[in-house]
């Protein structure tokens, strides 16, 4: 099972020039600009790309738009973790010789809706068995498992609120983060927040208040992957794929087998650990997709960082810093550095955020993160769900 370990590397990773409200850019233009930035980051020409993987677009759409004719394509589009799965598939494709330079692209006009496809037929299972009950997108469905977890394990809204506060503290150190102090004034909701601020914010869908929910943005991101043999030929230090996993657990959240456990997380996580030959104790830094505060809590439990049911108290643990400041478990200075870009909660969330989680893992492993750089990051995990805990993708990445 260790055949894929250290065989393929990410040599380019970048977002679009800006993130947030980009009404002047369409979905495909976001794919293309992200591709340009990732190729520039690697120092590779678009002409060298012979493998294309994307979500939220048919590979042919993106290939034609870019003007390339790749000999390997993958259009796996299963939500936010599609890009973790793309990296896994790119590893296999490069190892098999199906392509030499794989480009993974994401572009989504999640806020402005410029060529944003609206999904769902009224005859699909979701259209028949969930939509008629006034489902209104992710806040009303990603929230569905939460109260069962509260009921079985005593998890509370206060616990979850600590995750939002910790993640905002990272955003305040990232100039690109939409809700961070660099980009958004306090009177518009930017800058530091406390757990109490989360609980006091407007109720969206109980148990989620506004600050339990991710931002809604336009943006994109892209990655470039090559084989380990060529990985040192490019502009930046390579980031190697040590392990990867994926899974499809269900589709409709009402049909989730156990609302307190993400089966997909477990399946994907086990495969990632097995292929890397590593366990949770070996991971220095985590990017756990956070569409809502509850989402990374499930990851910490189902990926083995904390026993099932203990995620709430784990994340709510705080200590006091040298200047009397509160240090959150998963925040700057905490014992469990997580979502260090500011997360979907406070940095950017286009709809399929997983790409940005991978980009941040790459940057932390390269040591490019400036004020938010976590010391001694050699192994990073980027993990996410697709849909409402429906699918999952896990990557274990390393700089050595």
């Amino acid at each position, binding site marked *: 099972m260790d055949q894929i370990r250290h065989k393929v590397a990410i040599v380019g990773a970048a977002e679009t020039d800006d993130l947030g409200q980009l009404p002047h850019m369409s979905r495909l233009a976001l794919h293309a600009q992200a591709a340009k930035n990732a190729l520039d980051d690697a120092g590779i020409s678009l002409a060298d790309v012979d493998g294309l993987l994307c979500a939220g677009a048919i590979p042919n759409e993106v290939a034609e738009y870019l003007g390339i004719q790749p000999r390997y394509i993958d259009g796996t589009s299963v939500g936010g973790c599609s890009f973790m799965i793309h990296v896994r598939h790119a590893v296999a494709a490069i190892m098999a010789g199906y392509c030499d330079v794989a480009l993974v692209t994401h572009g989504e006009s999640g806020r402005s809706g410029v060529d944003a496809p609206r999904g769902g037929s009224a*005859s699909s299972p979701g259209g028949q*068995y969930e939509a*008629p009950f006034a489902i209104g997108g992710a806040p009303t469905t990603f929230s*569905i498992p939460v109260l069962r977890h509260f009921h079985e394990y005593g998890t509370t809204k206060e616990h979850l609120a600590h995750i939002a506060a910790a993640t905002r503290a990272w955003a305040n150190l990232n100039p690109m983060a939409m809700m961070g102090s660099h980009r958004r004034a306090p009177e518009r909701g930017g800058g530091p927040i406390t757990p109490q601020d989360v609980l006091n914010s407007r109720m969206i*869908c109980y148990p989620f208040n506004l600050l339990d929910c991710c931002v809604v943005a336009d943006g994109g991101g892209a990655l470039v992957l090559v084989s380990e043999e060529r990985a040192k030929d490019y502009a930046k230090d390579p980031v190697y794929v040590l392990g990867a996993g994926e899974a499809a657990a269900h589709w409709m959240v009402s049909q989730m087998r156990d609302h307190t456990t993400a089966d997909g997380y477990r399946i994907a996580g086990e495969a990632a650990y097995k292929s890397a030959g590593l366990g949770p104790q070996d991971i220095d830094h985590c990017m756990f997709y956070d569409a809502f505060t509850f989402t990374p809590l499930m990851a910490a439990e189902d990926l083995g960082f904390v026993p099932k049911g203990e995620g709430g108290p784990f994340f709510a643990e705080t200590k006091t810093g040298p200047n009397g400041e509160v240090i959150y478990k998963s925040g700057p200075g905490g014992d469990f550095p997580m979502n260090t870009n500011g997360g979907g909660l406070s940095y950017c969330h286009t709809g399929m955020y997983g790409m940005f989680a991978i980009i941040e893992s790459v940057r932390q492993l390269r040591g490019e993160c400036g004020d938010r750089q976590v010391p001694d990051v050699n192994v990073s995990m980027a993990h996410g769900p697709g849909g409402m805990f429906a699918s999952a993708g896990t990557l274990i990445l390393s700089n050595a």
Partner: protein
Amino acid sequence: MADYAGRLPVATPESQPYWDGLKEHKLMLPTCDDCGPHFYPRPFCPMPKCFNWDIKWTEASGKGKVHTFVISHQPIPPYNTEDNPPPYVIAVIELEEGPRMMSNLIMDDPYSTTVDMDVEIVFDDVTDEVTLPKFKPV
């Protein structure tokens, strides 16, 4: 009823008996002789080791428990009018027969909903053609 604003399901050939049953105020579940009933309707038993295509329709009791729920404050049709404002409850109901399904709870106070609360079905004839299975506390 003709101006119902919520989203309406459109049956497929495989699910038509389920929606026809609701119209007659019966909750019909596709049932395998060996494995029992399942939700949502498929023309086979969705237990991978069974995958039996001999399915019968059986009537459920309409009783169950709230497995988990949320209280939406979003003004989503039909919960977007003065007469029928948010908040409203979206719940996953665990039927007495075992399968789980999404629904709405009819509650005077949405915040009095609790996990594992006993509920029973209410047939909501939202249009002349469509009846939605909703639930209320017992």
